[in-house]
């Protein structure tokens, strides 16, 4: 309240409390409330037949009560902030998928190692060891991929990404899974550099190539009409998986055959437990496809009727 005189201590407290009270309300309401309360304070300050001490007390009580008000409802957050609020849960869910699958595959690896050490001759050849691991790994990868496919449908129904745009949904899905794999690599770092089957540069080349190509294939697939969408997306996912793996091997073996050489393919078998990362990314590819397909189905469903029990219409 501007009076032109030096403010009294009471007036300073009233002004401060009023300022604080206004600041507690949503920005869009502050101007009106400030005007309204200033008008009410003016009425209190000029109340007839009331002594100054009582007027001061009433002004203080009015503003301090406002400053301590409870139950002030905040405004609906802006779209971006709303998105930031709803996004973490599905994104965390997506990031957890690779970690869970990595743990499952690691269990298979440990079981295979125990099996090998228990039942095989210690002088078993390296190729035999690789064969056994491969033998365990391939069915494990397929089972994990199918399980992740089912999980993808379930996750999309229960915890969909808050993006109406399918391209944004696709990119966010791959980004969430990529974040999860990076976490997995970070978690396995203290254990050993090649728990997932590759040295780090190789893992990163494989991973980033897969993520980039898979995202691109999903964007392209979105432009294709009808059921071809999922055919293109699936083919793109497998291509991303294959190209990433080939590039990773080329990076790891600079003196080996070029990535496009058919001779590269058998090299996949020569990396001991190298099936882990391909298995992981294969499973994640299947997961992403089923997740996105179920997300599209969920997004196309009509929103629930806001008034399920409308008033009966008079005949």
């Amino acid at each position, binding site marked *: 309240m501007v009076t032109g005189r030096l403010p009294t201590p009471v007036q300073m407290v009233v002004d401060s409390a009023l300022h604080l*009270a206004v600041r507690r309300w949503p920005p869009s309401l502050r101007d009106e409330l400030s*005007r*309204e*309360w200033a*008008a009410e304070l003016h009425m209190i300050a000029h109340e007839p037949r009331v002594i100054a001490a009582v007027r001061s007390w009433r002004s203080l*009580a*009015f*503003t301090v009560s*406002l400053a301590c008000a409870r139950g002030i*409802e905040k405004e609906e957050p802006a779209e971006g902030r709303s998105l930031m609020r709803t996004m973490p849960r599905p994104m965390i869910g997506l990031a957890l998928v690779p970690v869970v699958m990595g743990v499952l595959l690691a269990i298979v690896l440990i079981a295979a190692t125990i099996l090998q050490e228990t039942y095989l001759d210690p002088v078993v050849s390296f190729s035999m060891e690789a064969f056994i691991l491969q033998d365990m790994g391939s069915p494990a990868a397929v089972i994990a991929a199918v399980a992740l496919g089912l999980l993808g449908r379930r996750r999309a129904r229960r915890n969909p990404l808050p993006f109406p745009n399918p391209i944004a949904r696709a990119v966010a899905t791959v980004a969430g899974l990529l974040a999860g794999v990076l976490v997995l690599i970070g978690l396995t770092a203290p254990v050993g550099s090649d728990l997932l089957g590759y040295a780090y540069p190789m893992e990163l080349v494989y991973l980033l190539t897969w993520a980039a190509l898979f995202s691109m294939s999903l964007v392209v697939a979105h432009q294709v009409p009808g059921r071809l969408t999922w055919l293109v997306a699936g083919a793109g996912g497998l291509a991303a998986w294959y190209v990433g793996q080939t590039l990773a091997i080329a990076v790891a073996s600079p003196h080996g055959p070029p990535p496009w050489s058919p001779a590269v393919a058998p090299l996949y078998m020569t990396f001991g437990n190298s099936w882990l990362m391909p298995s992981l990314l294969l499973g994640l590819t299947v997961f992403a496809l089923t997740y996105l397909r179920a997300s599209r189905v969920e997004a196309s469903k009509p929103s629930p009727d806001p008034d399920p029990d409308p008033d009966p219409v008079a005949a």
Partner: protein
Amino acid sequence: MVEDIRITVPVAKVLAAFLADPTEHRYGLELMAEAELASGTLYPILNRLQKAGWVEAHWEDIDPVKAGRPARRYYQLTAEGVIRAQAAIASLPRVAPAPTKPARPALGGAGMNATGVAW
């Protein structure tokens, strides 16, 4: 669109103050006196009632220079708000018998017991 709100004792007091004369426009200090609520309780309730469509507000149409005071903000129940408020008050359990003597007149002459509801 009018929405439901949770009817607490302070909300019911504010609604009762409005229902004492639903056509009357009331300002904050008046409602505080009639509902016997502090400003920090009243204004959040008024805000909720406004958002729910039960109450509407408008500024007093005066020239502040001529009047020598700032314009005040007035509140009034909407048509739908009157119906909702009456239904809400009627559905409240009566925890004490209705007063046998007239309610204590507050500012504007409307007491919180004007509707016969005891809190």
